Every structure is written in structure tokens, then in C-alpha cells.
């Protein structure tokens, strides 16, 4: 008898809770933005964040509200871009390539002829060396701008990926959680906080 009462009480309470939740989901139903949902449907759902938004849905929201271009989705490529442009009724735009990771110049010293041309090209004086002597790159000063690669007559400068080290790593500034990648007129890529 006691057990029967316990089962009924728990079952009744669970039933009541289920009914309350069912009613609540009706009452608090959220009308989604239909345009955002249609854009979200054509995105690849990789949630890669290469568009500068934390995922596909935030990007779809931003596109639907018109605050960002239709061509930021790299994995979706041209197919996704054309579909979004069609949905939004805007002219298609070429899809941007992935932003390059930070680079460092590296001189292969045994091939260097000591011509000093790269030293003159370097805008931040990160290359040291004298005429007819090997040149080398001061890693902490190099900005990875690639300006020294072109002048080198023997092509002994490589651009290598810059390793992230603890000494140079800093906390990101508070309150700037969402980063937006945008391109300036000079073709440089800037990351700014939205």
C-alpha cells in the first residue's frame, strides 16, 4: 500500500511536471527569424568560425540583419555564397580565402650572398648583417610582411609559420569576445572586436 502511494505520488508529480513543461513550451515559443533560418540551412554547419563569428547560426543572424557580407563562409565556398546572395537579393561576391597565420622571415644563411638588398627592404630593421656577410632575421622584430622576399636575388628567404610561445602570449582584453575579420584597402587583414 505504501509503495503504491509512493509510485502514484511520484508518477503524478512527474505527469504534472510534464504537462507544465509542455504548456510552457507552447506559451514561451520563440518565433525564429525566417530569413536567418533559411541562411543557416545553406551554411555547411562546420561551426569553424572562419567568418569571424562564433558559429554558423551567429553568422546567419549577422547576414540576415545586413551587418556583414555574404562571402565570409570559407568552407561553404561559392555554392553557399551564391545561395545566400540569392536569398538576400544582393549581388554575389567572391569568397575570401582564409586569413594567413602570422609568419616569420627566415634566411637560409649558407645561400646568402650578403647583398644587403633585404636589409634595405625591411621596414622594421629586423634583418641584420653587413655587405658580403651572412644576413639573419631578428625574430622578435620580424612582422612577417614578406617585403624582403621579393628583392633577394638568390631567393634564400623563406616565410615560415610563427610558433606561438608563452613569452609573447597575452590575455585577450575583457569584453571583446567576438572578433570580426575585415580587410583594409591595402589588402591587409585586420582583426577587430565587434
Amino acid at each position: 500500500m505504501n509503495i503504491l502511494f509512493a509510485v502514484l505520488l511520484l508518477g503524478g508529480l512527474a505527469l504534472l511536471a510534464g504537462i507544465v513543461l509542455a504548456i510552457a513550451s507552447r506559451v514561451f515559443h520563440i518565433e525564429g527569424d525566417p530569413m536567418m533560418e533559411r541562411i543557416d540551412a545553406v551554411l555547411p554547419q562546420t561551426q569553424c568560425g572562419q567568418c569571424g563569428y562564433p558559429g554558423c547560426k551567429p553568422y546567419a543572424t549577422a547576414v540576415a540583419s545586413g551587418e556583414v557580407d555574404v562571402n565570409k563562409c570559407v568552407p561553404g565556398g561559392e555554392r553557399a555564397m551564391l545561395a545566400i546572395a540569392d536569398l538576400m537579393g544582393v549581388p554575389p561576391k567572391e569568397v575570401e580565402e582564409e586569413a594567413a597565420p602570422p609568419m616569420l622571415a627566415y634566411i637560409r644563411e649558407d645561400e646568402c650572398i650578403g647583398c644587403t638588398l633585404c636589409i634595405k627592404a625591411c621596414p622594421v630593421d629586423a634583418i641584420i648583417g653587413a655587405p658580403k656577410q651572412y644576413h639573419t632575421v631578428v625574430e622578435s622584430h620580424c612582422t612577417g610582411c614578406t617585403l624582403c622576399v621579393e628583392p633577394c636575388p638568390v631567393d634564400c628567404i623563406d616565410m615560415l609559420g610563427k610558433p606561438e610561445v608563452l613569452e609573447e602570449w597575452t590575455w585577450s582584453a575583457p569584453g571583446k569576445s567576438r572578433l570580426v575579420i575585415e580587410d583594409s584597402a591595402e589588402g591587409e587583414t585586420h582583426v577587430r572586436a565587434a
Partner: protein
Amino acid sequence: MSEFALIMLSAVLVNNFVLTKFLGICPFLGVSRKLETAVGMSLAVLFVMTLASTASWLVQQFILIPFDLMYLQTIFFILIIAVLVQFIEMLIHKSSPVLYQALGIFLPLITTNCAVLGVALLNVQQEQTFMTSALYGFGSALGFALVLLLFAGLRERIDKAPVPEAFKGSAVSLITAGLMSLAFMGFSGLVKV
């Protein structure tokens, strides 16, 4: 008043849920990769644990004790806490999109996390009053938040540190967590509740 202060101090430092009682280890290791998500998770835990300890106290006093059903504590607490959290998630989703973005995604994750259920059961064991159980829930969550934030900060730095190959990833995180737990053992004896 000093009793309340003692409960808080005890819950946050001495009987820390994560590092002393080893409850809530899953979110502690799972959401501590980034400081930002750790903040969201902490706020969600703060909210849910306070809610859970008050709700379970009410269930205990007005359902379980009158009907002599103490042996069904766990299942009753799970039911009530899960329903309340689910209901409030819907409410937040409807009324405040901003708050939902910050908290919403974490709420279902911790609906009946072991730390949440733990605070409810411990409250009952310690025969707290309504006020002290609410405070104990809040304090425990505060302790969880403190430890989670500290750990997330450490992990963000460890990610960039030259860790030996064999210790990379989870291994060094677990060692760090162990060292933190050792450090928190230093608080034992500070308060006896």
C-alpha cells in the same frame, strides 16, 4: 550573521565542491578550456545550485517528510530540479535573449549535474534551515565558480607552455587539478562546520 559568514567560508574554501568533495569534476574539466566559457558556466552553476538547494529543501519539508518517503529523495530531487531548470530556461529564452546567450546553453548541461544533486542531498543530511540551505547552495556554487575560473586561467596559459610531449593535453590538466586540490587542502581546519 557570523554563522552565515562561516557557512559561506566553509562552502567556498574549506569544503570546496570540486577540490575537496570531488563533485562536478565533469564541467570542471570540460568547460575550463576558455576563460570566457568558464564565466558563463560559473554563472549558470551559481543560479542552478542556489535554486536546487532551495527547491529540494521545500520538497524535503513539504513532500518527503510528511509522507515518510525519505528513501525516494534522489529521484524526487532530480525530477524537481530538472523541471525547474528546464522551465526557467524557456522563460529566459523568451524574456531575455541576452541572458539566454550568456547562460542558456549551459543550463541544460548542468540540469542534474552531480554537484547540483550533491548540494541538495548534503543540505538534507546536514538538516539545514531554509535560509542556511539556500546560502550553502550559493556558497558551494561560488566555490565551484572560483575554482573553475582559476583553472580555466591556468589552462589557457598551459596551452601555450612548452609541456613535455608525454604530459600534453589532459595529463597536464589533471596534474594541475591535483595540485590545486592539494593547495585547497591547506584551508582545512580554517572553519569547522
